C-alpha cells in the first residue's frame, strides 16, 4: 500500500536503530520520552519498537487516547441519552466498551438501547435522514483530528435542516493537556514524540511553548515504524546537542500552520469550554469543546436531560497514574487479572491505543518489565500481581 509499505522497510529501520544506539552512548543519563498519541502507543507495541531501543531510552505512554481520558460521568451521560425512548445513539466503535459507573454502551445496547456503531459522523447524519421519526444522537469524541469532521457534519445538518439530529460533544484539545502534564511535578520528561494527526489539523507551531517555556524538545511524528524511529533519532540528536526545538518528521502530512479549512470549521461550530474533566488528569481549564449557541439545536446536552455527575474511578484502577506515565500498567494490581480487554475496569484497557491494552495484547511484558527491574531494583512496594506473565 503506497505511503505505508515504504515506511516499514526493515533495512531502513535497522539503520535508524544503529544511529539511535550510537547517539544513546552520548547521553549523560537515561532519558524519558513521552509519545503523546495513542496511535503512536499502538504502533510502538505492534512493531516492538520499545524492545529494540537502548535501555537508556524509556518510552512513557501519554494521554492522547480520547477513549482513555473519557471520565465515567460523561459515559454515564451518553448512556442516559441512549436510553431515551425514540433515540438512536450513534458512536465510533472505540467507545462501545468504555466502562461507565454501572454499565457500558455495549451493555446498554444489550439491555435494549438502540446504539449503533458508525465509521463517520456523516453516517449518523444519514441515519437521521433515514429515520425522520427518531432522534439521532452522535457521540462526538476525539481530539482536534476528529473535531473538523464533527463540525462539517453539523454544518451540513443545519444546511439540510435535519432537526432530528444532535451531537453529544466530548471533543478535547491536546495543548491544554500537554500543559497540564508539563506542570505536573511527578512527571520528569526529556522530550515528546508529538501527535501526527492532531498536528495535521492544528499544525506544528502550537507546540512552540514546549520548547520555549519548558525547554523540552518535541518531534511531530508519523505512525509507521520508520516514522517513529526517525522521530526518536531526531529527539536524541536534540538532547545530545542540548537543543530544544519543535521539529516535524511528518512533513508529508503536517504543515506549520495546520489545515486552515479544518480549523475554520472547528471555530465555526465549537467554543472552548471553561473546563473539562479528563480521566486521570482531572479538570483541565479550556481543554474541551462545546457546541456554539448558533448551533444549539444540534447540542444533545441541551436537547436531553443528562445526570452530569462526576464519578470517581475504581479504587483499584491506576489508569490516572498510567496516563501520566507515573506508573507502568503491570504496576496496577488489577492489570491482566480483574482488568482485561474483555472485562475492562479502566479505560486504558479498553482502547487498542491504551497503554494497558497494548501491553496486554502484544505481550512482551517480561522483556519490558525486566528492563525496568534492571534500571530500578524495586518496581513497587508490593509484589507484582499474578497477571499471567513470567518475569523469568
Amino acid at each position, binding site marked *: 500500500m503506497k505511503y505505508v509499505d515504504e515506511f516499514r522497510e526493515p533495512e531502513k529501520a535497522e539503520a535508524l536503530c544503529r544511529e539511535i544506539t550510537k547517539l544513546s552512548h552520548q547521553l549523560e543519563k537515561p532519558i524519558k520520552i513521552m509519545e503523546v498519541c495513542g496511535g503512536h502507543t499502538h504502533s510502538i507495541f505492534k512493531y516492538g519498537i520499545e524492545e529494540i531501543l537502548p535501555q537508556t531510552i524509556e518510552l512513557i505512554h501519554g494521554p*492522547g487516547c480520547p477513549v482513555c481520558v473519557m471520565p465515567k460521568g460523561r459515559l454515564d451521560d451518553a448512556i442516559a441519552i441512549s436510553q431515551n425512548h425514540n433515540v438512536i445513539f450513534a458512536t465510533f466503535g472505540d467507545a462501545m466498551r468504555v466502562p461507565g459507573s454501572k454499565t457500558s454502551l455495549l451493555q446498554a445496547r444489550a439491555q435494549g438501547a438502540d446504539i449503533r456503531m458508525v465509521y463517520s459522523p456523516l453516517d449518523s447524519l444519514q441515519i437521521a435522514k433515514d429515520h425522520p421519526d427518531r432522534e439521532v444522537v452522535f457521540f462526538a469524541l476525539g481530539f482536534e483530528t*476528529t473535531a473538523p469532521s464533527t463540525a462539517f457534519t453539523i454544518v451540513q445538518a443545519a444546511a439540510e435542516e435535519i432537526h432530528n439530529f444532535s451531537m453529544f460533544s466530548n471533543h478535547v484539545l491536546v495543548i491544554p493537556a500537554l500543559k497540564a502534564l508539563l506542570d505536573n511535578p511527578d512527571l520528569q520528561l526529556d522530550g515528546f514524540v508529538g501527535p501526527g494527526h492532531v498536528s*495535521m489539523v492544528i499544525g506544528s507551531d502550537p507546540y512552540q511553548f514546549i520548547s520555549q517555556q519548558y525547554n523540552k524538545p518535541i518531534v511531530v511524528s508519523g*505512525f509507521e515504524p520508520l516514522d517513529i524511529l526517525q522521530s526518536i533519532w531526531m529527539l536524541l540528536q536534540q538532547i545530545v546537542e542540548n537543543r530544544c526545538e519543535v521539529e516535524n518528521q511528518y512533513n508529508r502530512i503536517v504543515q506549520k500552520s495546520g*489545515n486552515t479549512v479544518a480549523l475554520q470549521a472547528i471555530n465555526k461550530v465549537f467554543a472552548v469550554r471553561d473546563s473539562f474533566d479528563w480521566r486521570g488528569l482531572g479538570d483541565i481549564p479550556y481543554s474541551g469543546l462545546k457546541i456554539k449557541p448558533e448551533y444549539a439545536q444540534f447540542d444533545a446536552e441541551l436537547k436531553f436531560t443528562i445526570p452530569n455527575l462526576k464519578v470517581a474511578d475504581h479504587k483499584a484502577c491506576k489508569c490516572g497514574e498510567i496516563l501520566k506515565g507515573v506508573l507502568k500498567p503491570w504496576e496496577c494490581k488489577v492489570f491482566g487479572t480483574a482488568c482485561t480487554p474483555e472485562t475492562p475496569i479502566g479505560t486504558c484497557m479498553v482502547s487498542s491505543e491504551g497503554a494497558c491494552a497494548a501491553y496486554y495484547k502484544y505481550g512482551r511484558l517480561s522483556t519490558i518489565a525486566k528492563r525496568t527491574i534492571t534500571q530500578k531494583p524495586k518496581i513497587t512496594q508490593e509484589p507484582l500481581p499474578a497477571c499471567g506473565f513470567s518475569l523469568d
Partner: protein
Amino acid sequence: MCLGIPGQIIEITNVNHKLALVNIGGVKREVNIACIVDEQHPPEACIGDWVLVHVGFAMNRINEQEAAETLQLLQELAAAQAGINT
C-alpha cells in the same frame, strides 16, 4: 482514534456536498473532501490526489515530494551504514 489511512481520489461523486470516491488499498469508499478544497483546489482538480482519510473525511493531501525526501534520507542512511559494514 486518530487513525488515518492514505488513499487516492479517483472520482468526484457530488460537487455540491464535496464528496469523492477514494481508493484505499483497493477498497473504494465515498469520503468528504471539504477539508482539502478551496479556491486554488476545486473538487474537479482533486482527482488523482493522495489524501489521508480519517472518519470518512479526507483531512489533508499527502505531500509526495516530502514523502520522497524522507525516504531518500533514510535510504542514504542505510546505504552509508552498509558501506561501513562491508
